[in-house]
């Protein structure tokens, strides 16, 4: 009778069920496959999440309408209400419900609307002020009413009414059409901005100049009034499709824009002379920037994900080896009967396929869940989900192949490996040197490039800045672990003179040098990567905050005014009063080119030394002396008749300062590297406001009064107004910084931190495998040692020393490697080269402490677990099985 083929024999046909009889091996493969699939699937999910978040955060910074679909026409006469129906129908054809958002016409006699018809009052006198007429549903419910009467007509803003002598009930004639004034409302620029008016700011506020009043905004009470007035003029009409910007993905936005383009194409062409389509043209820019941020992330994230995947693959391979160990009896028998590594790998694959598949599915789910909970946004593109599924499937195939291959080789090796054989050559080759060489190569390349690149205003981390330290950390960790493990025999001799707990712990570590070194690397790597990434993330954020703080002058906001007013107790209560002279100059220092008069520009801040330090932004790295000490210097006596000043960018000594045309000689008595309120690259001088002579308008010193406050805007504006000033603008973080510009950097290091946590999970898995793989010898050793006189407490101490020792060594090594990498890199990580200060170092001590405690707790728990397993062992059975 001929022998059936190998794959039809029982060990193979029954393999899927046989595998389930080894719960520990099943669990190991399931968990490690899940880790691998999680690593593989996380990259596309994270990138998509980041892209959505970049889109959403940009939209959140602006008005809601920026993210809405919008079509419209801006046309000359004849204007008819029928156009609104055309717009609504065009959206409806796309299956979307639109709202009539705006109908606006420019009227009046100003340059704003050349050729427009005048507004004529009841006496037949034309009103000289320009105006615009707006109809928007709900407008009357979103204004602050000064006075009103019932009926249809127009609302006029208070300043316009006062200047024109209009009151509710008056009749005006607009474009030849009689209209009734039904109400007066507070000018929109005088009330806090609301969501309703946010996107209409250009109609009532002139942010570009504080001097030119915006055209008055007349509000039509109803469409009939609007179209009656504008029939002979021209008007812009919009129909918008509101969407929830905080749930928008880039795919959603792209689909919306495509629908918008098609809808706009359905709208009849407006009159050719002045007509134009007015789709939402802001959203494409926002989408493009979100994609740019994602593109910037892809460089660092994909290689990092691949590296994480490779690490996870090592763990999967270890699980395969673990399977071979658990199935040692059967595979030894099969190997002894001539079954080669390939059929054994096939058997392993069949036994491990189910847990590997379950693990891959679990890993994908975990990745999806982690991105949902911890990722930048939960709104993912369908394509990313599909890509993540493929990545998970690939992780399953590669992981299973790797586990099975290693299992096959290990199973064969177990049977054939002679006693006392020397370590195989691959384990003796210092492969880690290749990592260090690659790190060096990245560093050399990086020296000729910017560490942080600006692409269309979006800061992106150079991939080399990510690759260099990771390669260096990985290579150094392995090399150090190899060197330390080489010292274990010496440590063993030392331990021979120590207590039984120390003796046993050190001997266990020394007896399994490769496992010890691997475990040490597994602890060192996450500690080092987490330390490095957390420090850079913290430092980047601190630096960015500092740049904003320096630019504004405070961590809060600066309310500026061109009016002249004196500080009051109310101003001192909300912050500090600062006068900025933008047009100051001093003679150019030696070796520096000046203007034609040999002078260089400076900014002068006249401050109140009593209140300045309380509100001004300060970091101790800005100067060698603390801020109060510098301010104290401002109170010192005149030097040769020159009041003392503190300078950033100017050396100590006399300075012939000119504020506009007024000469104000000063003496620089103290120097700082950075001073709060520095908004240009020019030097900044701080001077006690009370020591400055009066600088009147004729000096043309570009004087601006500011209130710096750490609190909300309203009290500062109130205090400024009460002091007789007129607020011009509010300088705050949103104005200074387009946060979206730096999302790429934040998320890059956020992803790296996640990777470090992920590697930590791998390390924990490795620790469990380490324990499981050695549990047989540990338990039998424990059973025998107990009979020999070892106490349970001593054994537990030995376990704590063994695992805790590796944890402590890993923490120390990881911290040193992280510190080295940070020291080399952080100065180059300037997120905004234009604004001071240069990068600040901020060490996340809390995160470091938590990591250390977690590592030690994990080691302690692992020791307790191992002790528990040993306690449960039945001595007679253990020693019988071991035979």
């Amino acid at each position, binding site marked *: 009778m001929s022998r059936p083929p190998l794959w039809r024999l029982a060990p193979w046909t029954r393999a899927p069920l046989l595998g389930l009889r080894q719960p520990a091996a099943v669990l190991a493969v399931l968990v490690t496959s899940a880790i691998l699939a999680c690593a593989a699937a996380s990259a596309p999910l994270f990138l998509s999440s980041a892209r959505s978040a970049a889109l959403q955060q940009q939209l959140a910074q602006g008005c809601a309408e920026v993210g809405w679909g919008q079509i419209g026409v801006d046309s000359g006469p004849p204007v008819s209400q029928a156009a609104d129906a055309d717009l609504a129908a065009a959206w409806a054809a796309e299956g979307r419900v639109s709202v009539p958002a705006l109908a606006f016409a420019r009227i009046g006699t100003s340059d704003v609307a050349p050729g427009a018809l005048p507004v004529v009052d009841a006496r037949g006198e034309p009103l000289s002020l320009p105006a615009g007429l707006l109809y928007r549903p709900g407008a009357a419910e979103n204004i602050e009413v000064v006075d009103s009467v019932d009926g249809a007509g127009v609302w006029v803003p208070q300043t316009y009414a006062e200047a024109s002598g209009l009151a509710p009930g008056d009749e005006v004639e607009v474009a030849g059409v009689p209209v009734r004034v039904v109400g007066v409302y507070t000018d929109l620029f005088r009330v806090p901005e609301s969501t309703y008016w946010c996107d209409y700011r250009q109609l009532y506020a002139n942010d570009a100049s504080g001097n030119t009043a915006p055209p008055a905004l007349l509000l039509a009470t109803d469409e009939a009034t609007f179209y009656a007035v504008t029939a002979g003029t021209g008007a812009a009409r919009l129909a918008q499709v509101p969407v929830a910007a905080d749930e928008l993905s880039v795919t959603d936005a792209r689909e919306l824009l495509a629908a918008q383009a098609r809808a706009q194409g359905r709208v009849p062409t407006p009159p050719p002379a002045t007509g134009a389509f007015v789709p939402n043209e802001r959203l494409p820019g926002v989408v493009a920037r979100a994609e740019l941020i994602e593109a910037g992330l892809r460089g660092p994230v994909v290689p990092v994900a691949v590296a994480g995947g490779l690490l996870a693959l090592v763990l999967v391979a270890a699980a395969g080896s673990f399977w071979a160990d658990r199935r040692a009896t059967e595979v030894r028998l099969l190997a002894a009967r001539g079954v080669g590594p390939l059929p054994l790998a096939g058997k392993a694959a069949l036994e491990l396929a189910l847990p590997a598949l379950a693990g891959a599915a679990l890993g994908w789910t975990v990745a999806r869940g982690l991105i949902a909970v911890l990722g930048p946004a939960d709104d993912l593109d369908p394509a990313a989900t599909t890509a993540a599924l493929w990545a998970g499937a690939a992780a399953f195939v590669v992981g299973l192949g790797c586990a099975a291959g290693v299992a096959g080789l290990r199973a064969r090796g177990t049977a054939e490996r002679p006693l006392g054989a020397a370590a195989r050559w691959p384990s003796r080759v210092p492969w880690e040197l290749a990592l260090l060489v690659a790190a060096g190569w990245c560093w050399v390349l990086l020296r000729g490039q910017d560490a942080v690149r600006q692409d269309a205003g979006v800061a992106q981390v150079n991939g080399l800045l990510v690759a260099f330290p990771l390669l260096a950390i990985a290579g150094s960790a392995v090399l150090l672990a190899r060197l330390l493990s080489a010292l274990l025999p010496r440590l063993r001799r030392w331990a021979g003179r120590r207590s039984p707990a120390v003796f046993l712990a050190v*001997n266990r570590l020394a007896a*399994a040098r490769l496992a010890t070194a691997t475990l040490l690397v597994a602890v060192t790597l996450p500690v080092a990567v987490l330390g490095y990434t957390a420090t850079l993330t913290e430092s980047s954020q601190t630096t960015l905050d500092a740049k904003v703080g320096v630019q504004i002058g405070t961590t809060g906001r600066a309310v500026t005014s061109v009016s002249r007013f004196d500080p009051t107790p109310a101003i001192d209560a909300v912050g500090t009063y600062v006068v900025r002279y933008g047009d100051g100059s001093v003679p150019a220092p030696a070796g520096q080119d000046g203007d034609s008069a040999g002078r260089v520009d400076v900014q002068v801040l006249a401050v109140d030394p009593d209140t300045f330090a309380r509100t001004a932004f300060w970091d101790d790295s800005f100067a060698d002396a603390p801020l109060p000490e510098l301010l104290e210097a401002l109170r010192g006596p005149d030097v040769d008749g020159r009041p003392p000043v503190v300078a950033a960018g100017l050396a100590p000594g006399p300075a012939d300062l000119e504020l506009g045309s007024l000469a104000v000689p000063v003496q620089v008595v103290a120097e700082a590297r950075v001073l709060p309120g520095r908004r240009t690259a020019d030097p900044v001088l701080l001077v006690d406001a009370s020591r400055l002579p009066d600088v009147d308008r004729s000096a043309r010193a570009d004087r601006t009064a500011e209130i710096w406050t750490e609190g909300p805007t309203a009290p500062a504006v109130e205090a400024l107004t009460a002091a007789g000033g007129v607020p011009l603008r509010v300088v705050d973080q949103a104005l200074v910084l387009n946060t979206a510009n730096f999302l790429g950097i934040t998320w890059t290091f956020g992803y790296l931190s996640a990777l470090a946590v992920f590697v930590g999970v791998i390390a924990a898995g490795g620790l469990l495998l380490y324990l499981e793989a050695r549990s047989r010898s540990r338990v039998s050793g424990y059973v*025998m040692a107990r*009979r*020999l006189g070892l106490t349970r407490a001593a054994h537990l101490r030995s376990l704590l020393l063994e695992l805790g020792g590796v944890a402590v060594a890993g923490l120390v090594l990881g911290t040193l490697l992280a510190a080295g990498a940070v020291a080399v890199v952080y100065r180059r990580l300037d997120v905004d080269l234009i604004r001071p200060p240069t990068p600040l170092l901020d060490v996340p001590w809390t995160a470091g402490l938590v990591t250390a405690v977690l590592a030690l707790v994990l080691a302690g728990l692992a020791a307790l677990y191992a002790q528990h397993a040993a306690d449960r062992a039945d001595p*007679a059975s253990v020693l019988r*099985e071991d035979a």
Partner: protein
Amino acid sequence: MTGPDDGPAVEVRGAVKRFTRGAETVTALDGVDLRVRAGEFVALVGPSGSGKSTLLALLCGWETADAGSVTYGGALAGRRADTFGWPELALVPQALGLLADLDLADNVLLPARLTGALAASRPRAGELMEAFGIDHLAARAPHQASLGEQQRVAVARALLLGPAVLLADEPTAHQDRGHADLLLDEVVGQARAGSAVLVATHDEVAWGRADRVLSMRDGRLTEGAPR
């Protein structure tokens, strides 16, 4: 240490031990009575699976009897076997029980280290290792030695502290005749020094050197060698 005529150092009366394997109940010990005096070398013989190892596990406190009793005499009287230290009861298990993480010398010396007698025991350990021909393997790990060499290490470890009771499960199973005789010499010497020695063995030479031979079959113990 008690002398050969001071009464039983170990006494088992009516010991019964059953194991359940699936639906089947296996009676490993079926009313076993045993006495071993201090200074006496008793050989326990019988086919594999007859209950020898179970009896040894019972004597060293790793198993408990379902019925019957195990008592110790002399200085060990009134104590449970699982509380005995190595100087009181030493064991050579069939699986040897060497600690894989320690080299062979450290394995031999481990009981001395754990009882605080390391320095004093080094000369004796050296003698035993030399006598057993394993002194040149002192720095090797167990897996780097042959099974026979490992077995000699286990016997040396058992003899190191001159135990009051010595239990050995097939201590010569992996030895050639010469090394088996060396081991037996030391085991007999230990008995002559006052230890109660019970050795489970298939080695007929060992039977000949024992003071008594007990046969075990199907969990029952009878006096004399099997026929």
